């Protein structure tokens, strides 16, 4: 019995040592309290020390987000004061494509309807959608000086849209030479879905393009390299998120409790203007 007791003690001390890494010091004893007490960043950090993400993002999507990061933050990671936008969160989702795009990466118009499935589970209830775009990457064979006008059809298949809602046809023109990416705004379509905490969106997209100088040539081979990504520009109203405009008027802090966020979160700009007016009035 002496031996087994000694064994038990060594096992117990080994267990303590394995727990001694810093994040376990941050975590309360009860596992269940974890989400309540830790800000989301630490919750993510403590949940995932050393764990690699299950799915690796598309390299072009990662390249795009790195460029976005360099636009918004310094090398030390401090948000640049020059940025004027209200969003403090940008999420890029790659689609689960239901149909394989045309072979050889060259998709000739009119494009086949490509079914795209986006899973938006990572969007939290405190994140409110300000803008969303479909991001197309053009492969480098697209470099031509012609201006191209594209009309594209976007149909949301799930969740089913209210009847009678015609899919938007948005004439869209851009000069291929300048674009490595094409951003197509889908905010009006996704706003109600994200607001109603829809987290799985199935849509079909196709667009046909003609060259402005030679419309008689008919449709134009659209040099798309991969199916589009979906980018959501969000305003995270949780207390841990940074609110650049409110730091100018430090009188107002985002609501800490979910129940109040509906008032505080939506008229974000009006709130800021109001605070501005009252601050100026007080001055």
């Amino acid at each position, binding site marked *: 019995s002496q031996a087994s007791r000694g064994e038990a003690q060594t096992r117990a001390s080994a267990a303590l040592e394995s727990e001694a890494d810093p994040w376990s010091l941050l975590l309360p004893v009860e596992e269940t309290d974890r989400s309540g007490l830790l800000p989301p960043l630490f919750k993510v950090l403590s949940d995932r020390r050393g764990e*690699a993400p299950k*799915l690796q*993002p598309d390299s072009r999507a990662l390249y795009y987000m790195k460029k976005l990061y360099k636009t918004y933050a310094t090398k030390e990671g401090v948000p640049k004061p020059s940025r004027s936008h209200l969003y403090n969160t940008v999420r890029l989702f790659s689609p689960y494509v239901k149909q394989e795009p045309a072979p050889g990466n060259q998709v000739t118009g009119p494009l086949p309807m490509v079914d795209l499935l986006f899973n938006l589970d990572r969007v939290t209830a405190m994140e409110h959608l300000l803008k969303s775009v479909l991001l197309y990457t053009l492969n480098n064979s697209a470099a031509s000086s012609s201006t191209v006008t594209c009309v594209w059809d976007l149909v949301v298949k799930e969740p089913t849209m209210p009847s009678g809602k015609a899919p938007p046809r948005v004439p869209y023109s851009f000069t291929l030479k300048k674009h490595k990416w094409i951003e197509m705004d889908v905010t009006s379509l996704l706003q109600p879905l994200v607001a109603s905490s829809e987290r799985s969106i199935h849509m079909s997209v196709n667009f046909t393009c003609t060259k402005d100088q030679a419309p008689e040539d008919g449709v134009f081979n659209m040099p798309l390299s991969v199916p589009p990504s979906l980018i959501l520009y969000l305003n995270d109203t949780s207390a841990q998120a940074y609110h650049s405009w409110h730091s100018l008027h430090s009188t107002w802090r985002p609501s800490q409790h979910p129940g109040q966020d509906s008032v505080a979160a939506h008229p974000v700009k009006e709130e800021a203007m109001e605070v501005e007016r009252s601050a100026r009035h007080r001055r």
Partner: protein
Amino acid sequence: GQKAVSLEAKKPHLTASFNLSEYFKQFLFPQNECELHDFRLSFSQLKWDNWIVAPHRYNPRYCKGDCPRAVRHRYGSPVHTMVQNIIYEKLDPSVPRPSCVPGKYSPLSVLTIEPDGSIAYKEYEDMIATRCTCR
């Protein structure tokens, strides 16, 4: 009785040859005065670089050092800090002296790869200490 004795012992002994420079010494700033220190870490040290894409270097900074007795103007401390100092010195040394802590922060932008493979750019409040205070 003990407390009275210990307090009596703390009173400065004003002897005839009282040394003024000694007296003023207590108002000088401490050698290791409360101030901001750097601590540069990279997420690869924490083995988080496989999902935190940016920034590569993160300097959260920290505050360390002794708080001088006359803290008012230099640290933006409230009057309460001096009251706490007086309590510690004259009434009850078990009350802690004011501590050197961060008084102002700046946010941090983080680019992460989420478990589902999506990519998130987020700005977090209060992630870098930019000024120290005595409280």
